[in-house]
């Protein structure tokens, strides 16, 4: 095994040889390897968040005609590090009347629940934590632990805004789990396995081309699961100050913050794994490290879409959010899964490309019909606000520091 083809496994094998050299049995070496691997993965995820925060702030800035962070380092790249240092040195305030265990356990749980999702995702052909046979189920179950963390935060911090925020968050997460699970069943059904490794291996072509309707529902539901705009009712600043994390300060608040960013990123790579072919791409079978590159590129494209979704949509009201779930997404996902099961079974004996085309056509028909039905139910009277032409910061100065000669 050459180093450049598969560096991660190369290092793992080398470390195993080292441990065997000092007389450790293979059982102990594997255990220690898992512990070290988990530590490295978790620490890597945490450091990754620093970059994600910069990426998101920069993009949101561009979407809102601002520059975003641009003072510290090239393109403001070191701004999150400064923020991190600030949050480390802040005082940890524990309000009176809190439930000590619940209050302190909640931030840990909300980050741990997200990090556990990293354990089962295949990042490349040879690089994954574990390949359990019920991977997708594991992802959903772990999401439930995140709900427990939120409810602990809301109840433990002895504040009515926190409690209202937690109730909203949990109502939202519980409801959106329904279309999430049902649309996640579509790839499971097409693959015949719940293991994420198998699902990635079976994607030929990508499932977004086979079942775009399921992919759309999955995407919307996973945005709702992350609790970001437009689904950020749980932390709506203008309604319930900051939701379930209002009583937290310093590093404990930072944990929630990191948990939210990491959840958004995790949601996008789960979408990539389930619908966009994971690490698959030209040459990724032979050179596993190339798979990791493809995986990251796809993940950042989906993450970009997620930020675009966040930056361009206003927040839902709570009844609109529930309506969207129970009156649109859930029935639609039920229809999609039934139609796909039926079509897949009817054309089981025909050629693969034919079945794919028919599945795609069926999905598109479902989407068009659903769109027509929804349009009929919603009265849209256009109301034009503002003028059409407005001054926009020209995109050619995206990476130019202000004051260095750029036209604002």
């Amino acid at each position, binding site marked *: 095994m050459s180093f450049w083809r598969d560096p991660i496994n190369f290092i793992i094998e080398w470390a195993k040889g080292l441990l065997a050299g000092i007389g450790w049995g293979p059982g102990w070496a594997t255990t220690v390897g898992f512990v070290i691997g988990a530590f490295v993965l978790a620490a890597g995820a945490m450091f990754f968040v620093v970059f994600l925060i910069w990426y998101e702030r920069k993009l949101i800035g561009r979407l809102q005609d601002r520059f975003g962070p641009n003072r510290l380092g090239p393109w403001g790249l070191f701004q999150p590090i400064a923020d991190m240092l600030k949050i480390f040195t802040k005082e940890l305030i524990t309000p009176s009347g809190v439930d000590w265990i619940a209050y302190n356990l909640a931030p840990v749980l909300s980050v741990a629940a997200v990090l556990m999702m990293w354990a089962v995702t295949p990042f490349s052909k040879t690089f994954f934590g574990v390949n359990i046979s019920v991977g997708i189920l594991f992802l*959903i*179950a772990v999401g*439930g632990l995140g709900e427990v963390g939120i409810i602990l935060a809301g109840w433990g911090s002895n504040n009515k805004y926190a409690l209202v925020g937690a109730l909203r968050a*949990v109502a939202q997460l519980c409801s959106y789990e329904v279309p999430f699970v049902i649309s996640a069943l579509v790839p499971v059904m097409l693959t015949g396995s719940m293991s994420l490794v198998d699902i990635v291996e079976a994607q030929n072509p990508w499932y977004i081309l086979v079942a775009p309707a399921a992919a759309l529902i999955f995407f919307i539901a996973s945005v709702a699961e992350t609790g970001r705009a437009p689904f950020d009712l749980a932390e709506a600043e203008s309604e319930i100050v900051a939701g379930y994390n209002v009583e937290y300060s310093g590093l404990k608040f930072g944990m929630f913050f990191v948990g939210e960013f990491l959840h958004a990123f995790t949601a996008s790579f789960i979408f990539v794994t389930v619908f966009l072919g994971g690490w698959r791409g030209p040459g990724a079978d032979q050179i596993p490290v190339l798979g990791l590159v493809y995986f990251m590129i796809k993940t950042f494209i989906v993450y970009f879409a997620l930020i675009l979704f966040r930056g361009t949509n206003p927040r839902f009201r709570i009844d609109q959010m529930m309506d969207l779930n129970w009156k649109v997404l859930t029935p639609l996902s039920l229809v999609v899964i039934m139609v796909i099961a039926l079509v897949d079974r009817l054309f089981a004996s025909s050629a693969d490309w034919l079945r794919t085309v028919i599945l795609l056509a069926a999905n598109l028909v479902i989407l068009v019909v659903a769109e027509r039905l929804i349009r009929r139910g919603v009265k849209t009277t256009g109301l034009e606000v503002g003028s059409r032409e407005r001054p926009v910061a020209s995109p050619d100065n995206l990476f130019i520091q202000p004051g260095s000669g750029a036209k604002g």
Partner: protein
Amino acid sequence: MSGLQIVFLIVAVVTLFSGVMVVASRKMMHSALWLILTLLGVAILFATLQAGFFAIVQVLVYIGAISILIIFTLMLTRRAMDDEHPQVIKGWWLPAVMAVILFGLIAGFLATWKDFQVMLNELPADAENLAAFGSALVNPAGYVIPFEVASVLLLAALVGAIYIAAERKEKVG
């Protein structure tokens, strides 16, 4: 004593302790949080039995859904959360004695069984055959009738729960 046995003992002690705290703690909310710990312990016990699927379903159904529902109900029934009154009945020692006696009876009865001390060895990796389990659930020669009855039960529970708990617009007695 092997590593797995130590893991079992720790998990079992934590599970039983938090089980006791579920029935003994005064604050209802604490009792619900201990319940979550108990359910997690039971999930780990399932995993030590090499029933990984059911361990994950346990986390999904019990922790992700049932305990959340219970916490919601605790918040909606406000008086449940006050802890001024004792949470157990006056003669609580009688059920305690009964439970201990029942435990002694069960343990003593089980101890007479010849396979009581048999060791559970590690199963082959495909012992938990989910494909066979799944097809047995929809096989007419297998368990399709219990499966269908269960789905009707779930539907009835769904409709019934909404009907019972929904606030009526007309006058209620």
